């Protein structure tokens, strides 16, 4: 894959069939990174250092590390001098604890332990959607009406988080934080939506709902009752409420109507704010980061996001690719490593004759294999670490000296294990490469920041800092 894929969606088949290192032989598996080199690198430090960047939105499929990415960027930006607030939606407990926000009180709290000399600060909060909804009601309705709304059973269910509420409230909170103007950078995590589109659809859906005839009909008794010209509407309404009443039960419908009537005066405000937040997301100070892992489903979701953001004219900064595997020994292919491991096992079997060769889990190797392996060495490109002339290193002649004792057998066993592990790693690399090639073929213009996989989870600020370093390290050395 030496040529840059052509832009546009038509490049799909090309990326799958013509490009990747997947279908080629053992010589290139996992080594060919030419396709990736064509992908622009997403530089995150300039993005968070730019005072013009006011909002960063992290979106993507569930389980790809959105929240961790948001938190790590927040820490890094604060330590580089920004006044940052991170809005997390549903963080894993220990991640929240790593920022000291294990209480869910819907207010940004200052995070202690931020090391910055330039007056940078980090605040973090968890979204409490019910609290956010309640606050809106309290702020925009007189006390008596507010109480009526808050006590309404329909409202209580709606605000406690049925489909969609979380998205509305995340948008609402973002608008609030921006309006407070206490921070010069807001980093937002997005809700784990049913689909990639919910978050973006929330403001519009709310708007269309509030503008809808249905709401007007529900409110009709209060508004149009008695006006002669609206009589037909009333007929329509009673027919409809009759149907709905049958379906939902009269009391429920009454609750809904009471709720809608009570909320009436607030709807205008909802709509205005939803529209404002939507425009805010399109503004130049906003940067969307699509977060993914090099897995098929996550990258497919990422592709949807990229397309959707473009359609909505929302500014995409690039793709953060988490949990990317690399290898410091990428010059040694999976096939050679496996063949060498089998040779070692075979040698061991000869040494000990105790039948432990079963460990290799494969049939006896053919005599040519070691020749093949040796031959493969000379064919490796010069840049690869294994391309050194053999004479500079302990060579085959030493073998006799190290065989025959238990320690030597252990070393051979160990070495075979190291080689198998490496073969496995190279297979992972090749697979990740294939899934990425597919994405790149579809969206060659999207800049990518790779984040090397960590063996464990993040528990503290130091862990977030480490992620921040990886986020901004540029291309992985040998991936």
């Amino acid at each position, binding site marked *: 894959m030496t040529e840059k894929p052509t832009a546009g969606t038509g490049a799909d088949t090309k990326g799958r069939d013509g490009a990747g290192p997947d279908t080629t032989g053992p010589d290139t598996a996992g080594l060919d990174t030419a396709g990736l080199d064509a992908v622009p690198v997403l530089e995150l430090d300039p993005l968070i250092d730019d005072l013009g960047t006011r909002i960063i939105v992290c979106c993507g*499929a*569930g*389980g790809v590390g959105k929240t961790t990415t948001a938190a790590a960027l927040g820490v890094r930006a604060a330590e580089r001098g920004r006044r940052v607030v991170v809005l997390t939606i549903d963080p*894993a*407990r*220990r991640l929240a604890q790593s920022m000291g926000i294990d209480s869910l009180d819907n207010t940004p709290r200052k995070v202690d332990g931020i090391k910055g000399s330039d007056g940078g600060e980090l605040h973090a909060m968890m979204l409490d959607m019910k609290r956010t909804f309640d606050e809106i009601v309290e702020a925009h309705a007189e006390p008596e009406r507010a109480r009526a709304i808050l006590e309404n059973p329909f409202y209580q*269910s*709606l605000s406690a988080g*049925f*489909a969609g509420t979380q998205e509305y409230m995340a948008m609402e909170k973002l608008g609030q934080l921006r309006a407070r103007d206490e921070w010069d950078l807001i980093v937002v995590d997005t809700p784990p939506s*049913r689909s990639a589109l919910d978050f973006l659809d929330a403001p519009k859906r709310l708007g*269309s*709902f509030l503008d*809808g*005839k*249905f709401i007007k*009909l529900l409110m009709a008794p209060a508004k149009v009752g008695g006006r002669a010209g609206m009589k037909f509407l009333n007929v329509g309404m009673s027919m*409809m409420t009759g*149907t709905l*009443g*049958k*379906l*939902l*039960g*009269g*009391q429920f419908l009454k*609750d809904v109507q009471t709720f809608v009537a009570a909320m009436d005066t607030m709807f205008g405000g909802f709509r205005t704010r939803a529209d404002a937040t939507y425009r805010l997301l399109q503004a130049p100070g906003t940067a969307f980061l699509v977060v993914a892992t090099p897995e098929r489903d996550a990258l497919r979701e990422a592709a949807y996001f990229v397309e959707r953001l473009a359609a909505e004219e929302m500014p995409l900064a690039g793709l953060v690719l988490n949990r990317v595997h690399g*290898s*410091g*020994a990428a*010059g*040694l292919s999976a096939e050679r490593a496996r063949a060498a491991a089998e*040779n*070692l096992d075979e040698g061991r079997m000869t040494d000990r004759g105790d039948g432990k060769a079963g460990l290799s889990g494969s049939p006896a190797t053919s005599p040519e294999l070691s020749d093949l*392996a040796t031959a493969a*060495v000379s064919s490796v490109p010069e840049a690869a*670490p*294994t391309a*050194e*002339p*053999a004479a500079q*290193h*302990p060579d085959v002649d*030493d*073998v006799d000296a*190290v065989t025959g004792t238990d320690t*030597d057998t252990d*070393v*051979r*066993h*160990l*070495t075979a*294990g*190291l080689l198998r*592990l*490496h073969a496995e790693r190279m297979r*992972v690399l090749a*697979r990740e490469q294939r899934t990425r090639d597919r994405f790149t073929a579809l969206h060659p213009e999207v800049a990518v920041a790779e984040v090397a996989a960590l*063996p464990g*989870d993040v528990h503290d600020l130091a862990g977030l800092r480490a992620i921040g370093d990886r986020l901004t390290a540029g291309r992985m050395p040998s991936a």
Partner: protein
Amino acid sequence: MSRLQVVSGKGGTGKTTVAAALALALATEGKRTLLVEVEGRQGIAQLFETEALPYEERKIAVAPGGGEVYALAIDAERALLDYLQMFYKLGGAGRALKKLGAIDFATTIAPGVRDVLLTGKACEAVKRREKHGGHTYDHVVMDAPPTGRITRFLNVNDEVAGLARIGPIHNQAQAVMRVLKSPETAVHLVTLLEEMPVQETADGIAELRAAELPVGRVVVNMVRPHVLDEAAVRAASGDHRDAIARSLASVGVTGGTRLVEPLLDQAAEHARRVELEREQRAVLDGIGVPAYELPFLGDGGDIAGLYRLAKELRKQGVGA
């Protein structure tokens, strides 16, 4: 085995794949299973490499041994119109309601109605019978919302039955709840041997139990083999670099200690992961829910991989 098998799991753990494999595994000879999805993601179609599923039950696979797997992507709006038609012969009124935005309201904004419809449709499939009296489907497998929302999703009927205190929605909600809380149902949680998914699984099981929903199995997915044990890695980090380099050279892999270093780094990472997995296994053991274990499929969830997982599940007792 329970007739309704609900599969949940944290995002990224492969719950759609597990649900599909389970549907295949349950479709033993002469059996028929229905695989339903409720989140409108068309994950099943992508998995089986077919075009997007319509709102219609159609056969998508034949299981090893001859059973059949049907699939259905449940659409809340269509399900609501179905109900209106079924119970009230309201086809026309349904269209009028749709025009007014009432259907939109009911399926996206009105609390819980959407989830009631989705679970309701699945329960209807569980209960449905053929003319000769047998169940249409021996098992219904649901690719359900993720762990963080599963209890609320399944329990929504309780809440709705409380909100709509009378009327068909109330009755419908209660009928669904009777199925969901009975031994007819089992809720499985898919996890990886990683900290966050395991923690979510533990939390999810506690929530399900508190809501008296029947917990089925934990499904530990993507289990990878341990190539090297810890002792070996410790030995490797000792003074054996030269010996390893010689050993490598003996089979034609040159590069000396410069190659040994990254190999040892990888081994150290591997050892850390093995240790973390051991810890997470201990946490899962502490929950006291029996588990299925599925291997990591190197090349993602293609159809062949799906059949492999189904075979694995049968080996572990599914469909027996």
